[in-house]
C-alpha cells in the first residue's frame, strides 16, 4: 500500500530549514527547469542569426564563444541540464513506483554526479579561451 506524508506547504520558503531531501529535489528541479526554458528561448534567438546569412551566424557563434564569461555560463548550463536530466530520471522512477524508499539517496546521487560531470567538463569548455 502506498504511503503519503504531510510535510506542509513547500511554497512557504520561510520553512526551508525544515525541508527534506525530496523537497529540495522539487525546488532544484523547478529552478533548473526555469533556467532551461529561459535558455531555450535565448538559444533560438542567437541561432536566428543564421537568417541574416552564413557569415553573421559564424561570427555570432564564434564571437560569443571567444568570451570567457560565455564559457563559464556554458559550464553552468551543463550543470543545470545534467541535474535536471538525472533528477528527471529519478522522478520517472518515482512515478513508476521504483525505488521509492531510496528517493532521498537518489537525489543525493544526482547532486554528486552532477558535480562530478560539471567539474570533469571544465577543461573541454574552457579550451582555447582566456580572461
Amino acid at each position, binding site marked *: 500500500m502506498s504511503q*503519503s*506524508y*504531510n*510535510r506542509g506547504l513547500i*511554497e512557504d520558503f520561510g520553512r526551508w530549514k525544515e525541508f527534506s531531501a525530496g523537497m529540495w529535489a522539487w525546488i532544484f528541479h*523547478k529552478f533548473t*527547469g*526555469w533556467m*532551461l*526554458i529561459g535558455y*531555450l*528561448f535565448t538559444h*533560438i534567438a542567437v*541561432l*536566428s542569426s*543564421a*537568417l541574416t546569412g*552564413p*557569415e553573421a*551566424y*559564424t561570427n555570432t*557563434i*564564434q564571437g560569443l*564563444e*571567444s568570451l570567457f564569461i560565455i564559457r563559464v555560463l*556554458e559550464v553552468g548550463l*551543463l550543470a543545470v*541540464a545534467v541535474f535536471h*536530466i538525472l533528477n*528527471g*530520471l529519478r*522522478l*520517472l522512477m518515482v*512515478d513508476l513506483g521504483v525505488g521509492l524508499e531510496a528517493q532521498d539517496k537518489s537525489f543525493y546521487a544526482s547532486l554528486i554526479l552532477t558535480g562530478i560531470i560539471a567539474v570533469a*567538463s571544465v577543461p*573541454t*569548455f574552457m*579550451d*582555447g*579561451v582566456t580572461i
Partner: protein
Amino acid sequence: MAERYSSFAPGGTAWLLQRITAAFLVVVLAFHFFLLHFVNHAADVTFAGTQARMENVGYFLTMVLFLIAGTFHGVNGVYNALINQGLEGTQKKVVLAVLVIASVGLIAQGIWVAIEMAGW
C-alpha cells in the same frame, strides 16, 4: 493522510505528455550537448558545419522534434509551476494564452532557422 500533492491532474493528457517528452528529452538533450561540446567544440562551429549536420533529414527531424518536445515540456512545466503558486481564474486563462502564443512562436522561429541552416 495527506492530500495528493501535485499540480498535474492525475491521469491527464498533459501529465502523460510531460513524462513522454521527458523520456525523449533525456536522450536527445544528452546527445545534443555531447555532439556540440565534446565531439564538435562550440567554439569551432561554422555555418558550413551546421549545414552539413542539418541537411541530413534524420538530424533535421530529430532537432525539430527536440524543439517541439523541449518547448512543450518547458512551457507546460512553467504553467504547472504557476498553478502550484496559486494561479487561477482569468489570470490562469491569460497566462495560458500567452504561453501558447510564445510556444507556437518559438517553434515556428526554430523551424524557420533549421530550414535556413539546411539550405532548403
